[in-house]
């Protein structure tokens, strides 16, 4: 039968799952940048090195420290919602659900939080709750369709992305500036809806967009890590995800768990939108004709983060970092889409992570086996 090695045996450094995940993600990044660099070389060999450095440097391209800090803040401001979308996708993925609808749930969250803030004049915490609930409801629709009607969550998610976009456009038409398609600004309409900064802005050269959204997002990531790995709820969610029938057999309410998972997933994405729009960083354009990419980029961050909430914190930051970095490229030479290109390559490479780990493990095992054989 099976070899009876005790689990107490010391696991080698490279055999640790966390180490492998980090290594794999770093490899994806390196290869992604390398391929991006090659593409840059193709387009224009002369500026390529400088261009790739610009992408990596991001805010360090500013000469003053104050400016760099300010734009470090900006990168963080956008990384927070990205992290939330990534967590949304990840949480659902743990339960065996591919929540491609995060994009639509994000839209719903944006719609609800802005509507509450601008139309109803409610304070920020109510707006946050509204975003949470609205995103959650979009998730629940997917969940109900999945649990009771067996509709594939990827497809229903995609359909709801569009439905959400058009609905939110209609909803927010009521609070747009008269002469533009943008919603009115928070600062001018309802200051109480702007997320508090609790002094954080001071750390980033008075970047007024730096708010509690950033620490909150990180906190939520940690919370999810705890929930998934240490709680009864996490135990149930994961069991439902990997073995629906066994979950049902053991008395877990697997339909309820699917719906609940998607509620939470949706709520996270919804909250992510509120984390951006309630800082005043961006206004919603009611003529928007495509779903914001945040939800889709979340997929990238999730996988780059090794499907781990803590890893995802760093992955979200990294993706945002190179995306922002892309905007400093010399546009006379390189199309700005090059940073999208690099991100997409990195996501594609993330597909090979599983194989990479498998490869690493079999190498480690072979080495061990050889060593043991030698001892005999």
């Amino acid at each position, binding site marked *: 039968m*099976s070899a009876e090695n005790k689990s107490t045996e010391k696991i080698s450094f490279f055999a640790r799952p966390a180490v492998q995940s980090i290594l794999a993600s770093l490899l994806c990044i390196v290869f992604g940048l390398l391929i991006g660099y090659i593409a840059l070389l193709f387009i224009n060999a002369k500026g390529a090195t400088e261009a790739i450095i610009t992408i990596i440097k991001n805010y360090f391209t500013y000469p003053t420290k104050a400016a760099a800090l300010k734009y470090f803040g900006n990168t963080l401001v956008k990384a927070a919602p990205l992290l939330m979308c990534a967590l949304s996708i990840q949480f659902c993925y743990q339960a065996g659900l591919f929540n491609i609808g995060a994009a639509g749930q994000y839209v719903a969250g944006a719609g609800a939080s802005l509507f509450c803030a601008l139309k109803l004049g409610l304070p920020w915490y109510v707006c946050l709750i509204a975003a949470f609930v609205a995103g959650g409801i979009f998730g629940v629709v997917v969940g109900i369709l999945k649990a009771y009607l067996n509709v594939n969550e990827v497809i229903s998610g995609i359909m709801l992305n569009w439905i959400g976009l058009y609905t939110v456009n209609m909803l927010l038409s009521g609070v747009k500036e008269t002469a533009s398609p943008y919603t009115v600004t928070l600062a001018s309409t309802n200051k109480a809806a702007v997320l508090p900064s609790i002094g954080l802005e001071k750390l980033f050269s008075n970047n007024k967009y730096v708010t509690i959204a950033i620490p909150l997002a990180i906190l939520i990531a940690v919370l999810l890590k705890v929930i998934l790995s240490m709680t009864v709820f996490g135990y149930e969610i994961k069991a439902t995800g990997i*073995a629906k029938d066994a979950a049902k057999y053991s008395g877990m309410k697997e339909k309820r768990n699917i719906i609940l998972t998607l509620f939470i997933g949706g709520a996270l994405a919804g909250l992510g939108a509120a984390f951006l729009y309630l800082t005043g960083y961006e206004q919603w354009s009611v003529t928007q004709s495509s779903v914001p990419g945040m939800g889709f980029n979340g997929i990238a961050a999730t996988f780059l983060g090794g499907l781990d909430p803590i890893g995802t914190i760093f992955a979200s930051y990294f993706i945002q970092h190179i995306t922002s970095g892309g905007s400093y490229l010399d546009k006379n030479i390189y199309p700005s889409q090059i940073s999208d290109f690099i991100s997409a390559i990195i996501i594609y490479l993330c597909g090979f992570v599983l194989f990479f780990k498998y490869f690493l493990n079999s190498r480690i095992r072979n080495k061990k086996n050889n060593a043991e054989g030698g001892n005999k």
Partner: protein
Amino acid sequence: MADNSEYAIEMLGITKRFPGIIANDNVTIQLKKGEIHALLGENGAGKSTLMSVLFGLYQAEEGVIKKDGKEVQINNPNDANDLGIGMVHQHFKLVQCFSVLDNIILGDETVKHGFLQKDVARKKILELSEKYGLKVDPDAKIEDITVGMQQRTEILKMLYRDNEILIFDEPTAVLTPAEIDELMQIMKNLAKEGKSILFISHKLAEIMAVADRCSVLRRGKYIGTVNISETNQEELSRMMIGRDVQLVATKEDKEPGKVILHVENMTVPSKLHHNNAVKNVSFDVREGEIVCIAGIDGNGQTELVYGLSGLENITTGKIELSGKDITHASIRERSTSGMSHIPEDRHKHGLVLDYSLAYNLVLQRYFEPEFSTGAGFLKKNEINKYADKLIDQYDIRSSQGAVTLARSMSGGNQQKAIIAREIDKNPDLLIAVQPTRGLDVGAIEYIHKQLIAQRDSGHAVLLVSLELEEVMSISDRILVMYEGEIVGEFEPKKTTPEELGLYMAGAKRKEVGA
């Protein structure tokens, strides 16, 4: 060696390793022409692996394979096919939504300009099915036909390819007694035709009945080969396990106590057809007795248990557990009210295959205060301690103990884990559905002992089994199910397998009161 070798197939010194395990360790078996050669061994002994090597699904690290005395290379199933080797796999390799015909021709299609010539194939299949008495409907879909017919499809698949060497990997594990008899006959016919057969089974009686010779494996190692005419079941099981095995369970007489499970007029709808799967069934199970539901597969036993355990809603009727009405109770409520359930499908229902053994061992109890805090956190230490206790107590073997992934464990040990979990709950009622299916005699002995221990300590046991031998040996009372109804109630001492067989086949019935 000469071309007119005595052996159809020789596997010499085969060694096959999997990560962390040597599945076959220098194994040699020789299959004579026209013989039925049985292969015996505990779960995980390496039988399927050895056959997969012969069939080209795996490549052995060491050893040679000879066909008719000539060394051959078998790198994939195509090579095996070309050499006339066919295999009926332990888990059928049939495409559920294809027809019987499509499954048979798959991989060996007759085509004209790339277009399938199904009529040619149909003719050939009907001829074969006539010749060997393998009744099938070529146009029926696999998902609609019985397991027996699926097996006949698998056999036809081999014959259709004119295979000379036929491998049967545990073909009887899923068959009804009548079907087993039929299969035995077919195998004998095939051998008579000159085909050579390798036959894997855990059922010693079957091996004694059909095989000419038997090779035994134990933990990947070759133990020996014996002539069936010169051996008996006891010797075989000793070779296999390395010790004497009690092949028939024994138990003392015991007077049943008060009613634990009371079922009244229960009707359960069917997922497959519009008819009800269980029709108006009533019965009781008492303290200190093992009640067995016997019957041919597909007569509503599965749905009956689903109805009892809450996996499926019942349409009418009433269920009481220890006097408490649980008709509309949730699965969780039933479980906490004293019902344990060893499910029929251990991979689908019984285990979360990608969870550790420890997590699986608390699958029914993780929410209890013993394993989780009021705030909803799991007490991991307690869970691991508890798992270690069960592993020890129930002798569950795995590579890394409590942290082993359930998926990587052998079938027998997976089953042991489920049994440990369900019994350790100390249930008033234990429902066990085919708990010994596919397990070796050692494991079966163990499970039977556990069931009887439950009964002896005054709990009620409801056993669903397709195997008459098991039914006869361990039950106190037998209920026969036919087409969703209970058509007879017997005491094992006052009936015979033959009588039960008639009821199971629907030839006879008597009214049974609850």
